[in-house]
């Protein structure tokens, strides 16, 4: 069934079709309509889930942790400041190996107060042990939400499904809403390895001595590494069930490209248009969309970008004192390559400033004009 829905509603539909059993959330712009929709699904009896109203994002995640530890499929959604308030328990969810799925609408961090898109909120959760998917379209949002449960529950790590504020969250697109029966066939009920059980009382998450702690972290990393394989496999299965695949990364017109743009989120869609236009003009350019940021698909990226002459990464984020985050990751991935193309980094579109085709052309023009970067990264569009 095709429906015209916003990116936020696509998240809600994904959680609904995945049969999330517990939803605990606190409203924050621009995430609010995700949980409003879920609340009405619950209220109308269209979803058989327990909707827990809480007084903060920290509590939202805490409630999801409790629910997941008790064996329920748990879902929440947040954005910007809310995610930052949640941070302590974001780590906890991963360390407790609870496959919670969370929709996060990327929102710039205050001050200055902003409700518009930027990736700083989710990228600052980079090292928490959560899987992170960055989505380009509403359909991808819906599909990824369902896939995320399957991957998370397979490796016992939580997953974020990330979408850009307003550009995706509040923009409507036609979305294919799969039949519940088909989703049920794809996604079986969650089967926890360990769960809270009054008949067999145990305490979870207690003190661990130096003699065992490191092994638990080793095991988390192994799970992350497995997640790369599982995500690929789940995406393949998804394709079999629904005829669509998203990949961990997506190369676009890269086969004979000399310049590769590296993008994430909605910038990808705009970049595709620019790539097509430049190809018309004879520029050998392609792009690589990074969909899965954690675990980072180093090897695929290394292999995909190995043949190009220059790489231009567009970062809608900044790690203060360094550069854009995606560029750091791409450079690190390429370090082990035999032929390392120079990586240009462009920080653009912070605080929701529009990244339009002209912005991307400016990035390409700069890349064409330089043999190698002359600075760690280049600001795009700063009114100096």
């Amino acid at each position: 069934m095709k429906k015209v829905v916003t990116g936020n509603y696509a998240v809600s539909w994904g959680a609904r079709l995945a049969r999330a059993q517990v939803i605990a959330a606190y409203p924050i712009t621009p995430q609010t309509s995700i949980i409003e929709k879920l609340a009405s699904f619950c209220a109308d009896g269209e979803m058989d889930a327990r909707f827990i109203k809480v007084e903060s994002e920290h509590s939202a995640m805490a409630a999801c942790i409790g629910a997941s530890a008790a064996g329920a499929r748990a879902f929440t959604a947040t954005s910007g400041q809310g995610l930052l308030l949640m941070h302590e328990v974001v780590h906890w969810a991963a360390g407790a190996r609870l496959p919670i799925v969370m929709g996060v609408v990327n929102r710039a961090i205050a001050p200055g107060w902003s409700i518009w898109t930027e990736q700083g909120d989710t990228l600052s959760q980079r090292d928490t042990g959560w899987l992170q998917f960055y989505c380009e379209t509403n359909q991808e949002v819906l599909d990824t939400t369902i896939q995320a449960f399957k991957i998370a529950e397979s490796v016992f790590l939580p997953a974020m499904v990330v979408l850009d504020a307003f550009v995706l969250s509040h923009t409507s697109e036609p979305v294919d809403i799969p039949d519940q029966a088909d989703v049920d066939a794809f996604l079986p009920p969650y089967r926890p390895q360990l769960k809270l059980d009054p008949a067999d009382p145990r305490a979870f998450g207690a003190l661990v001595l130096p003699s065992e702690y490191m092994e638990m972290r080793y095991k988390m990393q192994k799970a992350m590494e497995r997640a790369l394989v599982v995500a690929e496999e789940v995406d393949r299965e998804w394709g079999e069930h629904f005829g669509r695949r998203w990949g961990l990364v997506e190369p676009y017109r890269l086969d004979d490209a000399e310049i590769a743009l590296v993008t994430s989120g909605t910038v990808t869609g705009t970049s595709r248009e620019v790539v097509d236009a430049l190809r018309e003009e004879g520029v050998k350019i392609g792009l690589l969309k990074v969909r899965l940021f954690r675990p980072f698909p180093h090897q695929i990226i290394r292999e995909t970008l190995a043949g190009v002459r220059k790489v231009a990464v567009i970062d809608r984020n900044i790690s203060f004192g360094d550069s854009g985050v995606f560029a750091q990751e791409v450079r690190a991935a390429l370090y082990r390559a035999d032929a390392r193309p120079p990586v240009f980094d462009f920080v653009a579109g912070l605080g929701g400033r529009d990244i339009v085709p002209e912005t991307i052309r400016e990035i390409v023009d700069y890349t064409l004009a330089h043999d190698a970067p002359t600075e760690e990264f280049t600001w795009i569009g700063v009114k100096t």
Partner: protein
Amino acid sequence: MKKETEAKVVTFTSEAEMPMMPASVASTLYNKTGSWRYMRPLYANQTPPCNAACPAGEDIVMYLQLTAQGRYAEAWQTIVRENPFPGVCGRVCPHPCESECNREHLGGAIAIHCQERFLADYAAAHELDLPAVDAPPREERVAVVGAGPAGLSCAYHLRRMGYQVTVFEAKEQPGGMMRLIPEYRLPRKVLEREIGAIVALGVEMKTGVRLGVDLSWEDLQDYAAVFLAVGQSISRELGVPGEDAAGVLHGIEFLAQVKRGQKVGLGQKVAVIGGGNTAMDAARTARRLGAEVTILYRRSRAEMPAIDEEVNETLDEGVKIEFLCAPVAVLTENGRVRGLRLTRMELGAPDASGRRRPVPVAGSEYELEFDTVIPALGQVADLSFLRAEVQTERGRIITDERTATACPPVFAGGDAVTAFGTVTAAVGSGKRAALAIDCFLRGIERPFPDLAHNVQAAPRRRDPTVVRFENLNTAYFEEEPRPQERQLPAAERVTSFAEVNQGYGEEVALNEARRCFSCGTCNECDNCLIFCPDVAVLRGDSDDEPFVFNYDYCKGCGICVSECPRHAIVFEEEVKFTKT
């Protein structure tokens, strides 16, 4: 953990052997985290302000809780454990409980008097009997002198404790001052029912017997104790020339005559002198008999001792009140009243009662025409019958806080001792005497609070600290308005003696009981149970203890204390270790 496991070196041979996350091998109940605590929550049952303020010592909060649950019979029984006159008090008590009610800050005090009346009317409609006397019978006989509210209350409580009680009443009918309350405030059948219920418990009632005339102190020798509750029966005189003229009727005599259905020689223009409840009763009664009535009061409205609502109702019924004036002479013509000479008064320095003393304004005398003058200046006790050993002071019998006179086993209470002047205070005084006489006869020592505080016959375990509005967690309460009691329109009231206040029905009573904050008193809202992060709040197994703390695991975080809407839980420092 056992020592040998502790010593064992943990090794892993593969990733599969490594733990995913720490999970205990068994329950952690062995870890009694209560030992971390240094503050302790307690279900204290602090005292609600209404309970503290009730002169009759009623457990108001508890009967409101029972009412809120629709348990009307039990609610009524909760009242009559302390006060056998809820029908009377629900109608005539000035309800000091409501003046203290914390609900005042969020929509108005609970209409407690209407709740009490509702329950009394419910009991009457359903013909509920007072709980039967279940105490083992006692040999001792006790004499009660005076069948007013103090005497009847004392007799009732002593009877419930198993004593043989005889009440001697000078008048032909029991009831004392309650008999004089006009029909439109207190219908006769309400009073008859409540007195009848006390007599039905086995109290011997001897009316028409006046101590000192029909009964001697020697006759009382057969009794193990005597309770004097003779009230104040002598009207104060005006003390001005012409007072003995025809057409001067003293307030309580006038009210008694009307109540008895006697013909009263009332004229058309009536002056009532005084500012107390008797003055209001006399004025409103005269109004109902068709007269034009003016109340003359020597101070101003603020100093009037009458219940404020009574004053308003009096004014609504077309009675005029002239403030700051006092009679200097009753003007007569052929031995009949023709008017009053009055002087203007002004307020001077405060007197012993704290009210400003009225002082005549020189040269301000004036005259008004009246054909009837009703002085209602209050009463004094007739103590002419007393034995000399019973000490008195300024017309009142002296007792200690146990109501004991200087001459045991003679006890005394009610208006003859305290002159509080309300039925409810008299009921409380009689109950105090009953408890004290019981202690006296059984040779038990127990402390009694001073006469300004109430006593309970069936006390619930509680902390005497009174809960105030600032102690409550008002996040849990919304502003909700106090309901209006139904009342006959003023124009209709003056045409008959039909009851003015009509109370309200079950639906309003139920809602009103639910509006109660239940200050200091657990009503099983479950907040503590829900909020406790350590599952250390458990359900108790009795009504007295709806919840108990499992102190083995209570860490003393205090969340239950702050989330209790009604301050039923207090937090106290816990001293576990003392230096030796």
